[in-house]
């Protein structure tokens, strides 16, 4: 009995020792785990701090870049507005130039026409031929369909019809200087244009247009227009200038050709007398 009891006691002691050792080891392991846990929690905290710090700095960078970009966009918008303004100015200038070009082209054409017309008017001293050239010019350059040419008779102080187109010369009445629209135009030397062409009915005493033929201030006759070509609906700015310039050239051409015709006639009369006397 005692021997087995001793053995039992020894075995129980030994198992208790073993358990105690295992418990100690478990306690040590638990301690180590707790320490490790603390270390990790500390590490996580640090990392979170670092991450938060890092995130904050990145946001700041992004924010500053966004501000810069916004400024750049504003600058570019301003630049764009300035460029658009300049383009608009250039376009306006361009339109101005284009309009000016058309005006100059028109004037150039008018001067070319005038050059040819005056060249033709002064190319002859034949009175009838000069009248014919005036008629052609008024039809083709002015666009008149019915008109007359009246010249001043200094003896009677009346404007006498000498040529006409679209109407008969004899239909146009002689007009005393100073009387009516035609007579007044001859007296003052001022061009006359009716206020409105539409609805006009031919009246020999009230033409659409009356242009005095002037050499300086001396009126030698008038051109009276009663009807325009169907396609010529109104007068253009160029027409008014053309009228005046042509009237000047026509006047000198008429005057010199009439003077030449008179001198030719007188010369032949004198020649006749001389022939009579010398025979």
């Amino acid at each position, binding site marked *: 009995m005692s021997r087995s009891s001793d053995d039992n006691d020894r075995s129980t002691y030994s198992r208790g020792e073993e358990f105690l050792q295992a418990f100690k080891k478990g306690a040590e392991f638990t301690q180590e785990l707790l320490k490790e846990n603390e270390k990790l929690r500390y590490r996580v905290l640090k990392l979170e701090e670092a991450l938060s710090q890092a995130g904050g700095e990145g946001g700041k960078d992004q924010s500053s870049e966004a501000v810069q970009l916004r400024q750049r966009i504003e600058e570019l918008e301003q630049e764009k507005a300035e460029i658009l303004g300049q383009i608009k100015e250039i376009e306006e200038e361009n339109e101005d130039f284009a309009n000016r070009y058309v005006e100059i082209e028109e004037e150039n*054409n008018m001067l*070319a*026409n005038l050059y040819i017309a005056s060249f*033709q008017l002064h190319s002859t001293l034949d009175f009838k031929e000069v009248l014919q050239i005036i008629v052609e010019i008024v039809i*083709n350059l002015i666009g008149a369909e019915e008109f007359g040419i009246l010249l001043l008779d200094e003896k009677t102080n009346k404007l006498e019809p000498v040529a006409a187109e679209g109407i008969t010369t004899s239909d146009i009445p002689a007009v005393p200087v100073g009387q009516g629209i035609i007579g007044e135009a001859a007296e003052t030397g001022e061009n006359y244009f009716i206020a409105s062409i539409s609805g006009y009915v031919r009246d020999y005493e009230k033409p659409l247009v009356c242009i005095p033929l002037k050499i300086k201030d001396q009126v030698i006759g008038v051109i009276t227009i009663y009807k325009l*070509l*169907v*396609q010529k609906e109104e007068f253009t700015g160029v027409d008014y200038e053309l009228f005046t310039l042509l009237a000047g050239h026509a006047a000198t051409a008429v005057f010199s050709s009439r003077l030449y015709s008179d001198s030719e006639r007188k010369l032949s009369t004198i020649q006749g007398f001389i022939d009579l006397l010398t025979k």
Partner: protein
Amino acid sequence: MDVHKVLVVEDSPTMRQLIVFALKRIRGLKIAEASDGVDGLKKLSAETFDLILTDINMPIMDGLKLVSMVRNDPKYKEVPIVVITTEGAVEDRERALSLGANEYITKPIQTTTILDTVKRLLPL
């Protein structure tokens, strides 16, 4: 540069000179003149032209007769014809175009219109 021959048929010397003067502003044109339709036909038979400009109201032979005769000539079947006239009525225009005219320009003469038309019809 190619030279294009143009015939101007117009009885009025003033208007003829005016048209010729205007056409001289286009480079590469050789311009001939005729005073009526018959004179025009003579010039057309003597040499070849690339374009004809003609008035309508002319003595001896008017412009419409000329257009008609030119179009019946195989030599000038395809040659552009431009009528320049005082006749502004629609029926006058239609008649000229039906006879074979390519363009119908009414007077008073507008140099720009003549030049633009010639430039359009000739391969300049």
